[in-house]
């Protein structure tokens, strides 16, 4: 993420790759799978990300946040190559999202009748379906924050958007997820 380049020997490059990049490979694979829904595409995206990470390893500063750096590469590869190739249909219009938060609709009424006990009874498939039903840009913020535990600042760097936008998008994504979960709860007969 930095412009200042380091100079590593071949041995150092491999050490960084093994010690700083590879430990995040499962998290990266899960991220790739959750944004593509497809195992083969996720594997391709993962490999592509790791090749790029090694190719541009001079831009990485040893000891800094390797996980965030790798996630940023993966997200960019997904947007610039994979999403175009696969013509991902559920892309959110960023402008539309940001306009929403600058509009009077920001004071929407949020219903809060989803009981915590109902949530606890849900099974993994229902949760997974609810998450997958969100547009990819909303899904990404939830994955980065709730599953991978990135801070708003890290998410801001990974996604190339201001922190305020991270927060507002996260809020919107969570509201949508809650609505999806409520629908599942209703379909299961919970009130």
């Amino acid at each position, binding site marked *: 993420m930095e412009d200042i380049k380091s100079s590593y020997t071949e041995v150092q490059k491999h050490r960084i790759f093994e010690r700083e990049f590879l430990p995040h490979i499962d998290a990266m694979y899960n991220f790739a799978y959750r944004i593509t829904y497809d195992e083969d595409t996720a594997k391709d995206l993962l490999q592509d990300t790791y090749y790029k990470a090694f190719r541009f390893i001079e831009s990485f500063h040893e000891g800094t946040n390797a996980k965030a750096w790798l996630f940023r590469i993966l997200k960019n590869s997904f947007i610039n190559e994979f999403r175009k190739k696969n013509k991902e249909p559920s892309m959110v219009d960023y402008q539309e999202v940001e306009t929403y938060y600058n509009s009077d609709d920001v*004071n929407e009424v949020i219903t809060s009748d989803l009981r915590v006990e109902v949530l*606890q009874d849900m099974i993994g498939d229902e949760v*997974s379906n609810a998450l997958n039903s969100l547009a990819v840009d909303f899904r990404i913020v939830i994955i980065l924050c709730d599953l991978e535990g990135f801070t708003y600042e890290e998410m801001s760097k990974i996604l190339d958007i201001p922190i305020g936008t991270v927060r507002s998008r996260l809020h919107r994504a*969570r509201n949508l997820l809650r609505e999806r979960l409520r629908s599942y709860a209703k379909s299961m007969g919970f009130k």
Partner: protein
Amino acid sequence: MEDKKARDFLDCCIINNCGEPGCDNYVVRRDLIQKIIDGQANEEELAMYNNIIDSCVNCTCRQYCEQELAIKNLLQTKLDRKRVPLDVVEKIKTKINKTT
């Protein structure tokens, strides 16, 4: 005191529409609650949150927070975490070794 409670409750525009378009309070509270949920609030913000909750018995922020924490917990505990197939890891390592 009753007036204050009523006012706080009505001011709680995370859940309720406060009736003021573009209300700054909404964004402040939304961001505060979000930080609490995500464990990113500092001490001052935690105190501010507790003050809001304590001063507002009927405050729906508490219920909202509990719900959001439950959803966060649901995501963390019920979604499968896949492991990368070993052949993919080997493929990556082989290609990296070839490039040097």
